[in-house]
């Protein structure tokens, strides 16, 4: 092997497992983090000489735990830990240790660690920041960059989140079946938040935010490895992969958003699509439908269409109808209306969304879609007003630019009439 890059790869892969066990042991995020960091430093010293241990996570847990205990002892002026080259030879201890912390323990440990990060007392932004720091191990600088805030502000956000967690005291016993499934649901929602935080972006911040999407996918894989028979988790991972597969096609050379309709489908990532479709297939076989499965099925229909014109809007409209029943929300109805406009025309779509005007008054996409329907129906003045509202509500300059282009085309058709 060339260089020590493999060590950091191995440590990154082992981190959730090791951190989860250390949090169970110390029952404190800061103490677990310090212990893990100490274990990593020792790994960097020991592994290049001795090679990686057979079970890297168990090694990091053992060494981290000893280091943590050692710190306590030092404070009590007691005997220090043996030198590194002695503790790095853990083969005997490791065997018994590996037996004790088997996969089943790890499963609830990791789930607890993930669940701690999405505690309902924490606002969404703190949940995401905490998960990225604690589970993924991104440093504060990277996270601050992704959220476009200063390092000091992010440091403070994470510290605040940790003290809220400490105050809320999450139970450390293995959860019962009902509680476990509630935790899985909360963690899935948090992972989707991480992804969306990375995905909802403009071209300028795309580079800084891209790691969030990658981390979300990694966390979803982790969750699915823990619960390989959960169709909703298969679908969550599928949904993220299918959305991520389009990332290279989402911005043009000038940084403007390219809508699905105009994306170069040749630049979609076929490997991510293959994996996403395989997972949707597997999930649906279980015949236990859920909202992530419906959303993944919609994403799969887009991924399967060779051209925008070949998109199965009929099926997409039906799926949004199903989602409306499972998770009623004006945004879902709006999405159904967009699909309906493709199959049954803009007039019917407009009728569907008019009742949403109050609830979605401050929602960029509502006015954008409404403008597009009105434009299609030749009601240009109303379309202009709707587009104007959309521009005022745009979340990113790219969104505003997109609507401005629609407005411009409206003005042009006016002149030609």
């Amino acid at each position, binding site marked *: *092997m*060339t260089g020590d890059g*493999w060590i950091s*790869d*191995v440590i*990154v*892969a*082992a981190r959730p497992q090791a951190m989860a066990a250390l949090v169970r042991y110390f029952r404190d995020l800061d103490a677990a983090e310090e212990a893990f960091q100490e274990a990593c430093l020792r790994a960097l010293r020991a592994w290049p000489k001795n090679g990686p241990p057979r*079970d890297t996570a168990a090694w990091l847990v053992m060494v981290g735990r000893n280091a943590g205990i050692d710190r306590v002892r030092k404070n009590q002026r007691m005997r220090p830990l043996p030198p590194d080259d002695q503790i790095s030879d853990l083969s005997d201890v490791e065997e018994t240790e590996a037996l004790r912390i088997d*996969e089943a323990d790890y499963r609830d440990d990791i789930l607890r660690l993930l669940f701690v990060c999405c505690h309902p007392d924490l606002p969404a932004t703190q949940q995401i920041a905490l998960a990225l720091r604690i589970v993924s191990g991104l440093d504060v600088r990277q996270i601050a960059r992704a959220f476009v805030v200063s390092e000091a502000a992010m440091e403070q956000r994470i510290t605040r989140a940790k003290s809220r967690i400490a105050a809320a005291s999450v139970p450390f016993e293995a959860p019962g079946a009902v509680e476990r499934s509630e935790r899985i649901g909360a963690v899935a929602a948090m992972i989707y938040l991480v992804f969306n935080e990375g995905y909802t972006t403009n071209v300028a911040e795309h580079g800084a935010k891209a790691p969030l999407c*990658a981390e979300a996918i*990694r966390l979803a*894989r*982790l969750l*699915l*490895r823990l619960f*390989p*028979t959960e169709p909703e988790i*298969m679908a969550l*991972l599928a949904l993220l992969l299918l959305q991520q597969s389009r990332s290279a096609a989402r911005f043009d050379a000038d940084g403007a958003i390219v809508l699905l309709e105009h994306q170069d489908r040749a630049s979609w990532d076929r*490997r991510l699509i*293959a*994996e996403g479709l*395989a*997972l949707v297939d*597997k999930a649906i*076989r*279980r015949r236990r439908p859920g909202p992530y499965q419906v959303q993944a099925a919609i994403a799969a229909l887009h991924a399967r269409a060779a051209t925008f014109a070949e998109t199965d809007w009929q099926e997409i409209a039906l799926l949004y109808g199903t989602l409306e029943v499972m998770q009623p929300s004006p945004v879902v109805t709006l999405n159904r209306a967009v699909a309906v406009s493709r199959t049954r025309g803009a007039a019917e779509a407009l009728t569907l969304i008019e009742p949403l005007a109050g609830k979605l008054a401050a929602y960029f996409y509502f006015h954008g879609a409404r403008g597009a329907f009105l434009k299609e129906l030749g009601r240009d003045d109303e379309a202009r007003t709707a587009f104007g509202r959309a521009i005022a509500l745009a979340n990113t300059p790219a969104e505003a630019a997109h609507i401005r282009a629609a407005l411009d085309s409206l003005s042009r058709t006016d002149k030609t009439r």
Partner: protein
Amino acid sequence: MQYAILCYHDEKVTCAWSKQHDDEIMAKLGAVMEKHKSKLGPVARLLPTTAATTLRKDRDPPLVIDGPFAETKEQFLGFYVVDCATLDEALDFARELAAVNPGGAYEIRPVAAFYPDKAAS
């Protein structure tokens, strides 16, 4: 003699590779394959084991299970089929692959029967 070179690696590690790192490794492996293409048979890279389904046929009717056949520390992630005169030659080919894709292991397994086209039986 044909040999299958079975690729094992911890998918927690390989799935955490950035796209750029993944592309780099694939390009380097591609160069090794290009160099040996005259003796190379089918090559496949498999999706992660989270995409796998297992049919347990030790009972009747067989049981369908989500996930890979075996939970192992390192997973079966792909294979090469290569035509070599000796085991040493196959090992050399595997060493060349390993040089550009460190980590994990290659199992070199002689092929007993090979049906390159579907019509053969």
